[in-house]
């Protein structure tokens, strides 16, 4: 098992799937000749040519719709939208067409498109390049939403997303492309549904996804080392559908839940998981669930203000200590 970077894992999945099926192609802004803003398609233009590695005009709704149309004929486009902030422009085609066409055609058409897009707050990119949009996508029936937290997931989820017959939105993170992690040498398809136990524990469950899995893992280490609290970390890599059983199983074991999200709290991942806990295992709880979320603000440019707008490891530790009455 080799240790590779996140972007290399995404690139490998592209390469293997394009080699496997001539109807798999990829498109997006600057992904071809320029090799991709995050290198996710590096080298593929030379290998597969301009018909299958397509540099698009800056027309997010247009090229997303074009990808969807081609998928009606059995093509499997992997569409890169350079930033989720730009994905707002493609919401019409993603939500009105991709998510609904299988249903409204009475099962006649499928839209097996993959849309990958990095979101999240990075390094002083300002309000219009720092959005976290997963909560919007996960609320739309007919669309799968996954969000990898490491290179293995980035590779395995993209592989499965390409072959799945449903439209899949893959929410990546601007800050994670150079992260290293082990990826199996053999071909690996990760189920698009479910969750993973990132760290086993018995006292409290920390729910994270994408980058917040790291905050949870590191908070769990601090809680264990300094406070004798044994936290379990659940990686909710599938945001739609959410793993109700996995959520219930963990909360039924630890009886406490803290959800950590990089986005604003309203109508978000934390709110949804709290609702699931209420519905599935309310009487298992020893304390009201808590969420650690971003401030309800557009992301500011100033570095210190930007860091203050989103959660960090200490916020997670503090929330758990508060839950245990230790603050």
């Amino acid at each position, binding site marked *: 098992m080799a240790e590779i970077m996140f972007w290399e894992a995404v690139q490998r999945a592209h390469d293997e799937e394009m080699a496997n099926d*001539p*109807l798999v*192609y990829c498109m997006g802004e600057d992904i071809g000749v320029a090799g991709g803003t995050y290198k996710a398609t590096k080298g593929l233009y030379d290998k597969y040519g301009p*018909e*299958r590695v*397509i540099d*698009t*005009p800056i*027309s997010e*709704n*247009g*090229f*997303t*719709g*074009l*990808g*969807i*149309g*081609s*998928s*009606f*004929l*059995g*093509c499997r486009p992997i569409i890169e939208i350079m930033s989720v902030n730009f994905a707002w422009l493609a919401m*019409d*085609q993603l939500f*009105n*067409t991709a998510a609904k*066409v*299988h*249903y*409204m*055609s*009475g*099962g*006649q*058409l*499928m839209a097996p498109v993959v849309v990958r897009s990095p979101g999240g707050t990075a390094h002083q990119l300002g309000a219009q390049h720092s959005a976290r949009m997963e909560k919007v996508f996960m609320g739309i*029936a*007919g669309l*799968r939403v996954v969000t990898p937290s490491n290179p293995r997931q980035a590779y395995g989820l993209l592989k*499965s*997303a390409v*072959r*799945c*017959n*449903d439209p899949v939105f893959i929410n990546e993170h601007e800050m994670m492309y150079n992260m290293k992690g082990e990826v199996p040498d053999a071909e*690996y*398809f*990760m*189920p*698009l*549904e*479910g969750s993973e136990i990132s760290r086993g524990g018995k006292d409290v469950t920390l729910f994270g996804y994408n980058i917040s899995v790291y905050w949870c893992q590191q908070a769990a280490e601090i809680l264990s080392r300094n406070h004798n609290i044994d936290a379990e970390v659940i990686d909710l890599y599938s945001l739609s559908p959410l793993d109700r059983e996995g959520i219930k199983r963990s909360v039924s074991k630890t009886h406490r839940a803290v959800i950590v999200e990089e986005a604003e709290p309203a109508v978000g991942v934390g709110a949804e998981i709290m609702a699931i806990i209420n519905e599935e295992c309310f009487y298992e709880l020893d304390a009201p669930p808590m969420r650690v979320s971003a401030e309800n603000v557009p992301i500011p440019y100033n570095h210190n203000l930007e860091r203050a707008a989103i959660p960090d490891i200490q916020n997670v530790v503090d929330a758990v200590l508060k839950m245990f009455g230790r603050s």
Partner: protein
Amino acid sequence: MDSDLKKKLLREMLFARRFEERCYEAYVERKIGGFLHLYSGEEACAMGVIEAAQAGHDYVITSYRDHVHAIKCGMDPKVVMAELYAKETGCCKGLGGSMHIFGVENRFMGGYALVGGPFPLAAGIAKGIKMKGGDEICICFLGDAANNQGTFHESLNMAKIWNLPVLYVCENNLYGIGTRIDRSTAVVDQYKRVSGYNIPSEQVDGQDVEIVYDAAQKAIEHVRSGKGPYFLELMTYRYRGHSMSDSNAYREKEEERMWSKRDPIITLLDRLIEAGEITKDEYKAVDAKILAEIENEVIRFAEESPEPSMDLLNKYVLTENDSYASGGSS
């Protein structure tokens, strides 16, 4: 155009007219729900273009005013009507409705209710054709008002730079819902707007099916021969309001009268009568037969079909038993 083809198109346009007008009645009777957008007056557009194409081989996609295109692609009018009646025997099992007719077997790729939504989908279908190496083309029918959406410009640009086999047909009926084109659109002649993308385009009379057919043949030949996209503007008029919920209060009676004199069915009928190729009585007999077919077969089928099973509610949200979703594969 030979006499047999003219008579066939006359019959098909008349069938389309009677079908749509019967939908109007069914809507008033509340047998059809939701929004209903009728094609009466515009028949020569779909009939002329799709006749010039290879129905069932070439792909067709359009907006919510979609019944007639679907039928001309080869769909059974009974399953179209059953869909309007929201019955399980409808083409989409009652999940789609008037604005979402689909007949994928006939390569009718659907009716879509977001104005301008099909522009990029059509380019994508053309991309798919190209990747698979077929000789089909994709024909996208949309109204003039759709051209004020960003997808129009985005799609024409992509279709041109990637040389995609797509024919965009603009059914210019002069109104975007209830707003006249010159009040909403800087350039009224839609074919002129396409020159900015270096795509060949033409504007012709959409009320004369022979003119439409000839123009479409030329356009289709261009697209099929690998020369890239083409834009055909057909000047037409819809007799009914935008939809059934439309008061139609925004049009002058004189304008409506003028267009009714250019009715596509009457225009062709008069020509055939003058040439001695059909008599008035023969035409009346054809009409009676169509009316009987619509009543005794189409409407009856829709009326007598069952309501959809409640199991359909949660079906088709996602595809079923996908092993890559659930982890049954590796």
